[in-house]
């Protein structure tokens, strides 16, 4: 039983990590396409489609491990399985957003560029 428990936690953790990191990169690489409603931004961000990207794999793995342990505990109690599934989905979305913000594109974290751009846009700099 113990082995099954560890295995299931590891699988859930790995799945959350892979989904979180890969999906974040897919979004960032297609950012130009997603922003194509604005020709300028679409063209600018299309330049990162093939850029080297480094997601925060280690931190994502740790977070997903914690999430997997929590989900496993919830899942053990039958009445709470639906809640566990919802939590799993929620964790997945959070991990995905976490990865989008903290993935480094050409060495620079996306969140550093995003928050800076938002600030500049607010002040009418662009």
């Amino acid at each position, binding site marked *: 039983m113990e082995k099954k428990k560890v295995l299931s936690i590891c699988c859930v953790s790995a799945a959350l990590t892979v989904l979180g990191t890969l999906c974040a990169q897919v979004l960032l690489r297609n950012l130009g396409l997603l922003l194509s409603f604005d020709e300028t931004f679409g*063209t600018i961000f299309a*330049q990162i489609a093939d850029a080297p990207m480094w997601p925060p794999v280690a931190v994502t793995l740790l977070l997903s491990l914690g999430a997997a342990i929590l989900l496993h505990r919830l899942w053990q109690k039958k009445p709470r399985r639906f809640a566990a599934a919802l939590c799993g989905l929620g964790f997945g979305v959070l991990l995905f957003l976490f990865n989008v913000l903290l993935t480094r594109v050409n*060495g*620079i974290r996306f969140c550093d560029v995003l928050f800076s751009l938002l600030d*500049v846009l607010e002040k009418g700099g662009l």
Partner: protein
Amino acid sequence: MKRILALLLAALLLPLWGCATAKPGEPAWQAGFGCVTLELPKDTDEPLYIAGYHTGWEITGVLDAQQARALWLSDGTASMLLISVDCVALGNDTVQAIRERLSDFCRRTGCGSVNVVATHTHAGVDTLGLWGPVGIDGKNSAFMENVIDGAVAAAQAAYADRCEGTLSYSATETAGLQEDSRSPHVFDHHLYQLHFAPADDAHNGIRLVSFAAHAEALRGDNTLVSRDFPGAVCDIITEKTGEDVLFLPGAIGGLIMTPELKQGAFDARENLRLTGEAIASCALSAEEGRRLPPALNCSQVRWETPLDNTIFLYYKFLGILQNDVRQTLTGTYYLQTELTVLGLGDLALALLPGEIFPELVSGTGKPADPEGLKQIAGRYGMEELLVVGLANDEIGYIVPPSDFVLDEALPYFRDAEGDHYEETNSLGPACAEDLADAFEKACKAGNFGG
């Protein structure tokens, strides 16, 4: 009969005397020159943007083609390459690509240092990526390949051209050939030359000319490719003397440029001609200068400084700027670059990766500013220092911290009130201090001045 034979032998051997300026085993300078034209790519889908002034302006023709010119220099033991490329600037990634392509050559020839300097012409194809439409990489990948190929070919040609000779250094005063658009109006009004005189007639002499002014004689409306005044100066000197010439920019931050010499309505080509002639004339009127003993020394230091400029951050994110960066736990990004100090006899050359304000070279004396580079060099036995900008990288202007002012609302997006344009094209206020520290490290490591 014996006397006649002796005289004949002397007549045969005498011309050979000039070839052997040094006895076997004695160090002697060795130099060679190579020059390659950088052709515009014929079949390219990417536009060719003109670099220097406006974003998104495409090239409409060629006035005089860009070139890569190389100097091979050796003291018999240590050797190095100095490659001057007619372009606005080259990032460290392009310089590393050139070095990578020359790695086998360097192993084979014992070349210890490859240095690539941009002449900073504001009439060349964009080689840095900042002059495409806003936010779009303006580099043309085919032209960049031509730049790398050309630099490599020029270097190899310089090595093949090498011969022994003497090296002299001179500094000539100029007047009326520079303007400083920002106070304090400080600039180095000397024209510097290194002159290599070959020991035999089979080779041309070589001149390395350095002058501190932005290569903008054609000014901002020009859309024709040109080497600007560095090219004109090289051509005029070659025409008059038969010697090969390279141009290196000096400390041009601030912003130091040549004035409009064309009177009346502005004529770009006429201004270019007059500027080239005026600067070449100074070079040609220079005295021979003092001999430099054959001793070559090289000290390269990699260093980093905070990437404070938001726009440069965006350009790094987009892959337009390609320097290595690292981020600390507090979130500060540090951009990595390099500088090199070359010792040629008792003369030191500081190859700096940007456009330094001249007052940072001579020293401002203000507590907020770092010690002047000349003072630092003096403490390590280098009484004479020649500063070369845009060498091995382009990190923008290096502004004195005492005069570093940013717009409060939109730093780096807008100039602060007054004369503060250069800040918007600089890495940040810490750059000057970090550069001075790196320079001191290079001086310490290089064992200059004996």
